[in-house]
C-alpha cells in the first residue's frame, strides 16, 4: 500500500519511513507544505501521514487545500500539539485521524490500515470474497481455510483489488499503488503478479478487461 509521509524533521521522517516500510507500506516522503500538496493532488496514495508544523505551508492549510480540490484519501495527522482545540480543528479541517507524537510505529501502521479499509467501506479488519480471507495486519491470506503463501507484491496487489472490488483498475493505477518513488518497476510486473495470483488462487478470481485493466468481481448470489 502506497502512502505519503509529510514530515519536515529529517530524523523523525527517516524513522517513520523505515518503520512504515517494515510494516510493508510503500512510503513517499516529502518535507514541506507545497511539495505535500503537489504530491497529494497528483499521486493516488492510499493514505497520508501529515505533520502540522511544516515549512512553507502548514499542515492544516495543505489539508484544507486538498479537501477543497476534492482529494478524498484518508489523512492521519501527526503532530506535537495535543490540546483538544488542536485536535478538533484538525478533524474539522478534514483529517481522518489525529495522532500525537511520539507514536508507536505498529499503532501508526494499524491506524493507517484501518483508515484505508474504512475509506473503502470495509468495516472489518479482514477482507473476504470468493472464499478468500485477507488479513492486512497479519499480512496473510487464507483460501477455504488453507493459508496461501504470497510475495509482498502479490499480497499488495490482491489487497488493492479486494479493496476496490467491482472496479476495473488500470495497470498504471495498480503500479502507482504498489511502488513508491524511486523503486524500479519491472516491465510487465503487474501482468506477472496477476499471473502468479491466478496460479495460486484460481484462474477465475481476477478478470482481465482487455485494453483497460483488471478487476476482482463482487461475489454474486446470496451474500
Amino acid at each position, binding site marked *: 500500500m502506497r502512502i505519503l509521509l509529510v514530515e*519536515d524533521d529529517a*530524523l523523525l521522517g*527517516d524513522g517513520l519511513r*523505515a*518503520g512504515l516500510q517494515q510494516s510493508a507500506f510503500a512510503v513517499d516522503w516529502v518535507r514541506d507544505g507545497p511539495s505535500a500538496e503537489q504530491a497529494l493532488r497528483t499521486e493516488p496514495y492510499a493514505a497520508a501521514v501529515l505533520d502540522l508544523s511544516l515549512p512553507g505551508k502548514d499542515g492544516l492549510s495543505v489539508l484544507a487545500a486538498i479537501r477543497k480540490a476534492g482529494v478524498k484519501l484518508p489523512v492521519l495527522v501527526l503532530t506535537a500539539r495535543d490540546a483538544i482545540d488542536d485536535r478538533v480543528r484538525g478533524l474539522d479541517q478534514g483529517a481522518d485521524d489525529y495522532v500525537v507524537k511520539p507514536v508507536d*510505529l505498529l499503532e501508526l501502521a494499524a491506524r493507517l490500515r484501518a483508515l484505508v479499509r474504512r475509506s473503502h467501506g470495509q468495516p472489518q479488519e479482514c477482507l473476504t470474497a470468493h472464499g478468500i480471507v485477507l488479513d492486512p495486519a497479519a499480512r496473510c491470506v487464507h483460501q477455504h481455510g488453507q493459508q496461501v503463501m504470497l510475495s509482498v507484491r502479490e499480497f499488495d496487489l490482491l489487497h488493492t483489488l479486494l479493496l476496490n472490488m467491482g472496479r476495473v483498475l488500470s495497470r498504471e493505477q495498480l503500479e502507482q499503488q504498489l511502488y513508491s518513488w524511486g523503486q524500479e518497476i519491472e516491465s510487465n510486473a503487474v501482468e506477472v503478479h496477476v499471473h502468479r495470483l491466478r496460479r495460486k488462487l484460481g484462474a477465475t478470481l481476477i478478470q482481465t478487461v482487455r485494453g483497460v485493466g483488471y478487476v476482482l468481481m463482487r461475489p454474486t448470489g446470496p451474500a
Partner: protein
Amino acid sequence: MTRKPYSLQGRLALLVLGMLAAVWTATAAIVWFDARHEVEEILDSHLAQAAAFVVAQYQHDRPASEVQVDMLSLHRYAYKTTIQVFQDGRLVLRSANAPTTPLVADGGATGFQTVLIDNARWRVFAVHEPATGLQVYVGEQEKSRNAILWAVLRSTLWPLVLALPLLVLAVWWAVHRGLRPLRGLGRTLLERRPDALDRVQVDDAPAEMVPMVDALNALFQRIETLLESERRFTADAAHELRTPIAAIRAHAQVALQETDDALRRHALQHTIDGCDRATRLAQQLLTLSRLEANAVLDEKQVDLQALARRELAEAAPRALEKHQALELQDGPPCRIYGDEALLAVLVRNLVDNAIRYSPAGARILVHLTQDAAQTRLSVEDSGPGLPAEDLARLGERFFRPLGTTESGSGLGWSIVRRIAAAHRMVVEVERSTRLGGLAIHAVAPSQDKAFATN
C-alpha cells in the same frame, strides 16, 4: 517570628486623642491660672476696700475701749473673714474670730501678706498709718478664697471634662469611618480567588489609596504577563521536545524489528542522533529560559576576537565534516563590555547556524570590526541565503524557513536575539555582499557601555 501588626485604627485614634488631651490640658491650665489671677485680684481689692473703709470709719467714730464686733451674724461667710484695729499698739476693734495679737507679727508696712494662723492660711491686708498710730488688719481665709476660685473654674472646666469621653467616642467613630475604603480593599483582596490576576476594582477609592491600588494592579498585570510567557514557554518547549523523542522512539522501534544488520545499525545510529538532538534542544531551552528570567549579566571586559577564535575552534570539526571552509578574519583584540558566557553562546549559535544551513563545500567567514562608532561581529556564508519574507520572520521562536533539511527548532535564533538585546546590540540580517549567502551582524554602538575603549 513576626510581631503582631499594630492597628492603624488604634494608632490614629490614640494620636488624635493624645493631641486632644494635650490641647485640653493646656487650655485648662491657662484657664486655671488666668481665673485664679482675676479672682485673687478681685478678692484682694475687696480686702483693701474693706480695710480703707474700717480706717475711715474708725477715724470718724473712735471708740474709747475695745469693741468686739460680732461679724458672724452678718453673713454666713463672715467667720472666714476677720478684722483687727490697733490704736498705738492697743487693740481697739476686732471681729469675734480675730486673735488679740496682730494678725501679722511684725506689723510692718501696708500691703498684702499670707500668714498661717491655727493651721489655716489667711490672706491679710494691713494698713499702717504712722501719723495717726492706727493699724488695721483685714484678713480672709485662703480656703474660702479657693472655694470661690473653684466655683468659677468648675463652671468653665466642667463642660470640658464632660466632653472628653464624648470626644473619645467621636474620634474612634470618625477614624473607623475614615478607614472604611481600606477595610473594603482588604475584604476585596481576601475574597479573590488565590490565582485571580484581574484588576482590583475599589469603588470611590480616596486619593491616598489610588497609588496603592494602581501599584497593586500593575503588579497583577506584570505577574500575569510573566505567567503567560512562562506557560507559553513550557508548552512550546514540551511540544518541541516531542519531535526528537518521537524520532528516537521510531528509530529504536525500527532497530528492534529490523533483521538486516546494516539497516539496524543505521536505525541505532539515528537513535543516538535523536538523543543528541534532544540534549541540544534541552540545553537551548534552558539557555532561553535563563535569558527570559532576565538574569543579571555578569559584565566585564571581553575580547571578542579571542572569544570568536575559541568558538570557531570548537565548531571547526563540524564544518570540516561538511567540507566547509570556516574562517576567522585576523584582527586586533576587540574589547567590549559584556557577559562572556552569553557572548560565547551568541557566537556559537551564529556559527552553528551558518554550518547547519549552508550546503557542503560552503565558505563561512567570521570577522570583527571596531571603530569609534561601533563594534560589529559578522558571520557570513556562501549558502543559499533567505528570501526577504523569511528574513523578516527569522528570530520568531520555532520559525524555520522553507527548504530547511537540517533538523532544528529555530530556538538558536531566539537565543541570539535575546543575548543581543541584553547587550544592547542590534542584530542585522542581509544578503552577504562578499559571499552571496546570509550575512548576520551583531552591532554594539560605542557610546554604549557595551563598547569599551582600550
